[in-house]
Structures are given as C-alpha cells and as structure tokens.
C-alpha cells in the first residue's frame, strides 16, 4: 500500500464522514451540520416534487379529451392550484439553494459550516411546518384560487381553504429568508484565506445573488398574503372595490415578489450549469467576470419588470411601455450567459457525461424559454398571448425545463461527493436524454396551442385544440418516466454503487479537495486559495492572472 493511501485510511479512522457521524434519528433531526440539513431538504422537496407531479398527471390525463370526464370543474381547479402552489413554493424555489446550496456552499468557500448552523436547522423546520399546513389544506378539501391567489376572487368569492394554504406559503417564506440571510453572511464572513470575490466559483456567486433576491423579495409576498388574510378573515377592505379597495393592488404586490422568484429559480441553475460545463469541457468558463456581472444585473433588474404580467390588467399605457422596455433589457444579460456557455465549449475536451447532457439540455431549453420571453415582453403580442398556453409553455421552459434540468444535472454531478458512491453513467445518460425529449414533446405543442387562443386553466375546451393536448399528454408520460427513473438507479447506487474517489470528475473547486463523502468538519486541514477558479487547461490564464497582465507593469 502506498503511503498516500495509508494516510487516507488513517484520516478516515480519525474522523468519520458526515454520514457515519451518528446514525440514529435524533442525530439527523437535531443536526446543525449543513450537509445533513441539505439531505433533509432533499428528502422533503423530493416528496413535494412527486406530489406536484401527481397533480400534473391528473391534469394532463383529464385534458386528453375536451370534455370533463375525469374530474369535475372544481376538482380540476383544485388540481392545478395544488400543482402550482406545491411546485413553486415547495419545490422550485427551495430546490437548488436548500439542497445543493446548503451542502456545497460551505465546502466551496472552504469553511466548516454556514454562519448560523442553528438558524439553518430552524429554516428546515419552518419549511416542514409550512408544508404540513398546506398539505392539511389539501386533505380537508383543497384550494381553488390558482397559485396566484388573485383578489377579489381569493378574498371574497372562493369557497375553499384559502387561509390555510396562504398561511402555509406565508410560513415557508420565512424559511427562504432565513436561508438567504445565512448564505449572505457566510459568503461575506467565512471565505477561506485567499478566496477573493473574483475567485469565487460561479455556483457560490449564484447562491449569493439568489439570496439577495430571496431576502429582499420574500417579505413582499408575506405582506400581500397577510393582506389577503386580513380581508378574508377580518373583512378589512383592501382589495374589495365596493369598499374602496383596489383589486389590482394585490397583483402589483404579488408580482413584485413572484417575478423575482423566477430568478430565485434560475440564478442557482446558472451556477450549477456553469460548474458542470466548465468541468466537462475542461476549459475555464468563457468570460468569468461577465458571467458574474450578468448574474448581479439580472438580480437587480429582476425587481423592475413585474408589470409585464399586467399588460391587460388595466394599468396605464405608460406603465406598460416602461415595463416592456425593462423586460427587453433583462434579456441581454440572459443572452450573454448562453453565449458564454457556448463559448466555453470552444477548444474544449468535451465529455458527454450525464451531468453534461443535463447542462447542455438546460442551455437549449433556457434559450427557447428566453426567446419566447421576448414575445411576451412585446405589449401588443402579449395582449394576445397572455393567459393562454403560450405563457404556460414559456414559464415551464424556464422554470421546469431550465431550473429542473439544472437541478438534476447538479444532483448527478455532486452525487459522488454527497453520497460517496458512483451511479451508472449509462442509465443516467438515458434519463437525461429522455427528459430533454419528453420535455419538448410536452411543452412545445403548447406554444402553438397558445397562439391559436387556448386559454390557460381551462378544464373543458373547444375540440379543435384536442390534437395538441393529446400530443402534450403523451410527452408528459415520457417526462414522468424521465423524472422517476433516477429514483431507481440513484437509489441502487446508494447500496451497490462503486465507492467514489474524492474527485471523480477531475474538477477544480474546494469541494473536490476533501474526501467523498466529506467528514463532519468538511476539511481535514484548513484550505487556502492561491489562484482563480477553473484552471482546467494548463496554458489558460485564470481571471486574476488576466487582471495582473492588464495592469501597467511597474518599472
């Protein structure tokens, strides 16, 4: 046995991995280890993902025919509301930050844990309480307002459990805020020696910008839900026009959160995809600094475009044009990111591993989603397309095609680090490809349908739309398979998978410089950083070398 291997064995004897460090329930439920909390979150959001998926399956099965033959109108309305609420607040928003972010951020920053480990555990409990309350609302009969809770329908006319569901979402908001605060503090205070801002991995930048949006936007959602509660439960006239309230006020408040929320889902995806593409192409990310600035710009302008959800709501024509302008502007940094990922492939050594297939799939789906966003940013065209299936397709491309592909990509990429096991590459590649095809098959027909005028949230519809709905439902079956299939081979790898070495992809980044799975304290010796990220090619300069070269030489 070589001396190096002996040293490894010795170290393992000294400190067990985070998974072996206590195995009873108590050691998991009271843990303050960011890695274990990441796992707790992963289990919870997987549960919600499949719950939301069941609702989606019901919806797509029902829409195969134009008549109401599987569900009643009320059941259908409750099904799409459940699908929306669960998927947005209990899966998409928390997905990457609370699982991969929780697990990886301290590792990438070279620190032992997040700045506030107990707050981190608390945020998971808050998440669970919010989730249980929403589930309870579901068990006692459900909600029929749509995930948007538009007033005055939600406050005065809905006969369903609006208050319970709104409270669930209200509570889960605190979990978001806590996570955001924790990530911001950690990134500011706990970076390893030598890890300057311009040396941060893009995933860490993504977590940081996402956290800013979460901390600044979520309170607005909480307030608007409290106002809904105030009107519904106590009769305070806030949105009721008969008492002098403003029915549009809610939409302004709601989208002030919910548009930035799209970036809460997409910015983390940018981070994940950047890490995977640069590693699997063995090339430093093209234009690192532009990638960072683009994320910051998106996070900032993301707060100024909410009005593009309201072009036909009756807001002023001037507001429409202003919001349209800002919506076109925000397309620019998003496009830059797509170009830079493409540029990263140039002169690379590209390997088509499963994570890479997910990442490239992300780029394709995000491009389509982004381009169709331009259609909706154009006021006169949006007037026709809004509230139709075109919008449904557009946001699924961004939020599901984009964000969920990136989540699956990241899950596979860091799976060896998280579990210490390797999965079957071939089965995973198959899943990634089926997801890409299933997704396009499901949602591309919806663009056409939307253009032809099929309104969203319709349970019964004119028969001329049926062929498109059938196509979409068949695609959804493929997609459902692609989402469920990884459960089997990833689950199998937990028990039978080959043991993972510390750095199976040969990646840069501090998280790969510790064991797989990492010990409780993350690193056996405190890491120090001396160069910029992503030095994959021996003759390629890292960002700070470029900066050095651009500085005037001192005599």
């Amino acid at each position, binding site marked *: 046995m070589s001396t190096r291997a002996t040293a490894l064995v010795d170290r393992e004897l000294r400190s067990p991995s985070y998974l072996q460090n206590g195995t009873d329930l108590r050691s998991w439920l009271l843990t303050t280890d960011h890695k274990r909390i990441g796992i707790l979150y992963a289990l919870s959001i997987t549960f919600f993902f499949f719950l939301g998926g069941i609702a989606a399956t019901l919806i797509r099965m029902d829409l195969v025919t134009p008549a109401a033959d599987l569900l009643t*109108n009320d059941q259908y309305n409750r099904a799409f509301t459940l699908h929306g609420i669960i998927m947005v607040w209990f899966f998409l928003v928390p997905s990457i930050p609370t699982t991969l972010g929780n697990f990886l951020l301290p590792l990438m920053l070279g620190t032992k844990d997040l700045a506030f480990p107990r707050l981190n555990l608390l945020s998971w409990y808050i998440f669970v309480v919010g989730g249980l309350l929403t589930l309870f609302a579901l068990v006692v009969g459900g909600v*029929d307002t*749509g995930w948007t809770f*538009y007033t005055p*329908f939600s406050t*005065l*006319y*809905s006969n369903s459990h609006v208050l319970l569901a709104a409270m669930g979402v209200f509570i889960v908001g605190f979990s978001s805020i806590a996570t955001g605060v924790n990530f911001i503090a950690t990134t500011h205070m706990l970076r390893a020696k030598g890890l300057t801002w311009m040396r941060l991995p893009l995933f860490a930048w993504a977590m940081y910008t996402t956290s800013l949006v979460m901390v600044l936007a979520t309170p607005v959602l909480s307030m608007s839900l409290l106002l809904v509660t105030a009107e519904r439960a106590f009769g305070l006239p806030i949105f009721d*026009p*008969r008492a002098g309230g403003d*029915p549009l006020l809610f939409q302004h408040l709601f989208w002030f959160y919910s548009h930035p929320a799209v970036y809460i889902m997409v910015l983390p995806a940018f981070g994940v995809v950047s890490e995977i593409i640069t590693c699997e*192409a*063995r090339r430093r990310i*093209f234009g690192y600094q532009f990638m960072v600035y683009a994320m910051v710009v998106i996070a900032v302008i993301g707060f100024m475009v909410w009005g593009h959800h309201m072009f*036909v709501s*009756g807001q002023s*024509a001037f507001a429409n*044009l202003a919001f*349209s*302008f800002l919506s*076109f502007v925000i*397309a*620019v940094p998003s*496009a*830059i990111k797509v*170009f830079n990922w*493409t*540029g990263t*492939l*140039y*002169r*690379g*050594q*590209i390997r*088509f591993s499963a994570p890479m297939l997910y990442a*490239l799939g992300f*780029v*394709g789906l995000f*491009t389509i989603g982004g*381009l169709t966003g*331009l259609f909706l940013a*154009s*006021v*006169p*065209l949006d*007037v026709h397309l809004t*509230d*139709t299936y075109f919008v449904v397709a557009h946001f699924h491309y961004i939020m599901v095609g984009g964000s969920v592909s990136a989540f699956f990509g990241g899950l596979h990429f860091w799976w060896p680090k998280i579990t210490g096991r390797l999965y079957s590459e071939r089965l995973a590649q198959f899943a990634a490809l089926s997801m890409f095809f299933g997704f396009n098959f499901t949602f591309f027909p919806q663009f056409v349908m939307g253009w*032809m*005028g099929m*309104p*969203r*949230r*319709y*349970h*019964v*519809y*004119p028969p001329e739309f049926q062929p498109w709905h059938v196509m979409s439902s068949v695609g959804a079956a493929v997609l459902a398979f692609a989402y469920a299939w990884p459960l089997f081979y990833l689950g199998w790898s937990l028990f039978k998978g080959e043991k993972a070495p510390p750095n199976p992809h040969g990646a840069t980044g501090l998280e790969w410089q510790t064991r797989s799975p990492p010990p409780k304290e993350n690193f056996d010796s405190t890491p120090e950083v001396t160069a910029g990220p992503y030095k994959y*090619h021996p003759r390629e*300069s890292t960002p700070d070398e470029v900066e050095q070269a651009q500085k005037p030489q001192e005599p």
Partner: protein
Amino acid sequence: MLPEASTLAPHIDHLLLLLVGLSAVIICVVSVLIFGFAIRYRRGSKARRGRLPDWIARDVELGWTAATLFVALFLFWFAASMETSQYEVPADAMEVHVVAKQWMWKIEHPNGQREINALHVPVGVPVRLVMTSQDVIHSFFVPAFRIKQDVLPGRYTETWFNATKPGTYHLFCAEYCGTDHSKMTGGIVVMPKQDYARWSRGVNTHGTLAGQGARLFRQLGCTGCHGESARVRAPSLAGIFGRKQPMSDGGFKTVDEAYLHDSILRPQKDVVAGYKPVMPSYQGIASEDDVVRLIAYLKSPNGGAVE
C-alpha cells in the same frame, strides 16, 4: 389555423413572424455552435486546442453584448410603436357595454339590444367595448381579433376592434374566475351591415340604452334630488358628461364613466364642491347593468335634464 378577423390581427401576425424568424435564427446559431463544438472538441478528438487568443475573449464578448442590446432595443421600439399606433379608439366607434359575472358575459348595445354570451357586430365598423365586472376579475379575449382586456369590478376598462370578416369567433374568459371559468365562453358574430341592421331591429322591445336609463333615473328616485324642482340641494346633471367639476377637497375631476359609476355606488368618495355629502349609496339597489344604463342616459344629448 387562427383566422385574422380584425384590422389589428395582420399587424400582430407580422410582429409574431418577425420574432419567430429571429428566434429561429438564434436557435440555429446556438445549436450549430453547440453541436459543432461538441463534435469537433469531443474528448479524444485530434482538434487543435491551446490558449485562446486574447482578442477572442475581449472583442467577441463586447461584440455580442452590443449586438444583443441593439436587437433588444430594436424589438422594443418596433413593438412599442405598434402599441401606441393602436391605442387611439376611432372617434366614430360604436359603443357596446359588457358586464361580466361568474360565469357569463352580459352585453348591452347602444340601441338597447341585450344578449348573453354572444356579441353581434357589423363588419367594418369600429366597436369600442366598455367593460366592468359584477364580482371577480374576468378577461375578455377574442383570439381571432387578437384582443384581450381584463374586466375589473369597480372599474371600467376598454378595448376596441374593427372586424374584417363575417363569421362566428370564440369569445373566452381568459382570467381565472372560479368553478365554471372554462365555461364562460361565447361567440362573436360578425355580420354584413344590412344583416346587422336587420338583427338589431329584431327582438328589441326595451328601447335604447339611454331610454332605459331615463326610466331608471326616475324609478330609482334620482329626480327627487337632481331634478329642477327638487327640495334637497344637489348638483344638476344636465350636460354633465365630460365636464370638469370642482371637488370639495379643492381638486377637479373630469366626469367620465368611472366617475359616474363611483358617484352612484360610492357617493361619499368625491363630493362636488359646495354640496353636502348627503347622497345615499346605490350599492345593492342599482346593479352594474343599471349603472351602465344610467350612464348611457347621462351621456345622451338631453341626459340629466328630466323634469
């Protein structure tokens, strides 16, 4: 596919084609590059690698950022100028009132003709829709005309169209409004002018909208205060529509549909200067349809001048 049945539709379709074309070009460029690089630079291929020339990193990046910004601004300008050119409603537009409620469309023509979940219009005549809702937010959507406008409670919104092809087209409610949202549909029947004239003379026994309003004005007791010989001092309503009225809070309000609507249902909101806020609310007494009729009456040439 979707018919182009209004003067607006061809414009929208041009914009759509422009964007589809542009998207196709961008998707082609991105996928050719991705597939091209993926094949040429796959691991193990013999393609030349090595350090990127510095100009690539800098100039290419600046170049495509500037190009993207330019395209974005061009698209904004193109779409915005189309929007502003369509914004003005033609002065000779025929006015139709729409009251939405869970889950039906109630339509009132200027001549008093009423219909539910159907709207008959003549071809080639601009139609202005003045809409309000009795309960939640609905949205008036006619795909063949490429128009959509939310219909709000407590507020009037408007949109307009000029139909170009006779036929029957879908009318949808596009804003989710509760249990039977997907059944809140109807048909827009576009007819040649003579047929429309025949149709509108047809079943109507109610008299014009303004005439119905005049009758209501008396029935609801409005004359008691607003009439010439009334004992309570209230402003005369003769010729009031479109006038600028001084308010008791020192400001001015132009008397439009929204102002009249609020003055009937929430009279304490804006009180005319020099008068006491003594008018009772007609909330629950006058329905949204009634308010539409009252407004039509007050807008008519001798509106408000009852004796």
